[in-house]
């Protein structure tokens, strides 16, 4: 019954600079509506994997299919990315000169024609959904870490992406905020039926997901039952 949205077939990625093989033959299928998590030690290739799935970069070899589309056949990854993928980063990466509202509008610039007032409307709604309706006109420096990440989450939803990628989204916030953020991500996963892939070190975060994939040295070494992580 499950429909695959992300398929990696024997994906490798080498960096000439530093002579690193960051991914060594990754095979992975992720299904529609999954809330899954990738764990592994620092430097094992989690971010590299996420960047490839997010069409930010191309693999050295192998195939990546997103929603049935082989990325090797996609000429313009920018447009593809803005329509299909939402990103959440550890360091938030909000544009410092823009307000929360304007930051959420950013992904809507090149995703197809949207009227400026429609962009604003949508962004306002998204910020309301993450509970920030009172902060829409604040610039990032006036927001707490948790609020910044909520803006970033709203931003990742701007184009109703099929897939949301979060690279250590709770890495820069305290544990209480972290719990609130994962709750928010869970809700989004359920309400919007978006597929969520979260990279994390935090067992508490991982335990809140439905599937945990373990990585080591550029390879997938197994899966764990999320509930087992709590012990």
């Amino acid at each position, binding site marked *: 019954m499950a429909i695959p949205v992300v398929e990696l077939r024997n994906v490798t990625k080498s960096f000439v600079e530093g002579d690193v093989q960051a991914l060594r033959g990754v095979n992975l299928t992720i299904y529609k509506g999954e809330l899954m998590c990738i764990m592994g030690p620092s430097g094992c290739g989690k971010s590299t994997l996420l*960047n490839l799935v*997010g069409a*930010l*970069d191309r693999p050295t070899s192998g195939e990546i299919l997103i929603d049935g589309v082989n990325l090797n056949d996609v000429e*313009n990854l*920018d*447009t593809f*990315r*803005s*329509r299909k993928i939402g*990103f959440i*980063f*550890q*360091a938030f*990466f909000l*544009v*410092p*000169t*823009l307000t929360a*509202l*304007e930051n959420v*509008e*950013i*992904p809507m*610039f*090149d*995703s197809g024609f949207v009227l*400026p007032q429609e*962009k*604003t409307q949508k962004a306002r709604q998204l910020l309301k959904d993450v509970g920030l309706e009172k902060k829409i006109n604040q610039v990032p420096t006036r927001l707490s870490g948790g609020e910044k990440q909520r803006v970033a989450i709203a*931003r990742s939803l701007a*184009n109703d992406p099929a897939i949301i990628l979060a690279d250590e989204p709770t890495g820069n916030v305290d544990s209480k905020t972290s719990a609130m953020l994962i709750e928010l991500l869970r809700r989004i996963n359920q309400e919007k039926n978006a597929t969520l892939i979260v990279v994390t070190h935090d067992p508490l975060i991982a335990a809140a997901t439905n599937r945990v994939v373990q990585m080591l040295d550029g390879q997938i070494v197994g899966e764990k039952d999320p509930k087992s992580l709590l012990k």
Partner: protein
Amino acid sequence: MVLIQIVWKNLLRRKIRSVLTVIGIAVGIGAVVSLVSITDGFVHGWKNMIKGHGTDLTIVKAGTEANLLLNILDESLGDGLRQVPGLEAVTESLVDIATIEDKPSIMLFGYAAGGDYMNRLKFQTGGPITLDDKDEIILGSVLAKSLKIKVGDEIEVEREFMTVVGTCESSNVLENGAGIMSIKRLQKLMDREGKVTTFGIRLVNPSQMPEIKKEIETRFPSISALSTREFVDENEGVKMAQALSWGISLIVLLVGAIATMNTMFMSVFERTREIGILRALGWRKGRIINMIMQESIILSLCGGILGIFFGMGAVRMLNLFRQLRGLVQAEYTTFLFAEAIILALILGVLGGMLPAWRGSRMPPVEALRYE
């Protein structure tokens, strides 16, 4: 939100740097504006002076059209010219450079006493010279003011004494800074008896100008009959001033483009991360280029507009100097303003191109890597 709002916020991020860049461009554009407006004003004033004299065609020696002072014609040529049909008046004038009081190189114009040119002068005080042999001189308004001389005073011109009989205000800065004498007296003063610089010709019917010009030039192969436009535009000094304006414009373009490029490169480099994020969030390369180009062009256009004011201010400042008052006569044409804005625009495009291209090429993964 639209792109221009982001562009604007980016420029305001480093206010001092943006303002300094704008001022830098404005100084350059201002130099061009003041230079060109003064040249234009001079050319315009000169043409007006000739028009004011009622002259349709100016006769000069063939081959020396470009330099008024090299022009030497025989007075007797006037009699020949008067035989040509269709001419209402033929008026000779002599131009020379002399020392007046302690001022060297003052221009002296010699017009026929009681003649047309003499009588058409706009007198502030006194009146025209009516007799050929009197030791009389009329001073242009600026010269009179700087010599602190009034009608009735005596002044020394080339070691001879002349009585000032009038001061006049001309549309032309040359006349304003010059002395005017009867042509006969000037010829004697300068040892140039029987010589004139140009003949001014008024036609009975100005629409016959092309035919009469041809007729004159066939009858007298050694001379050229020039329309006012030809006469002024061919002038060496005018051409030089125009070449200088072009030269300065080019330098301004180059320096301005480099200054803009410097600012934009700095701005792009310090935003490496941010541009990478925009790219990761789906912005196409073209939009990044667009954003950076708009920033660059807004800077340069602001510089252009401010530069126009700088240029006009500079001309005003020049006029504050007593020695220059009345000599600097700027003419501001729509064309000049358009030129300044286009210059600024080109400069902004040139300055923004490389930084924009560079910014668009930043791979998003690289930008996002460093934490």
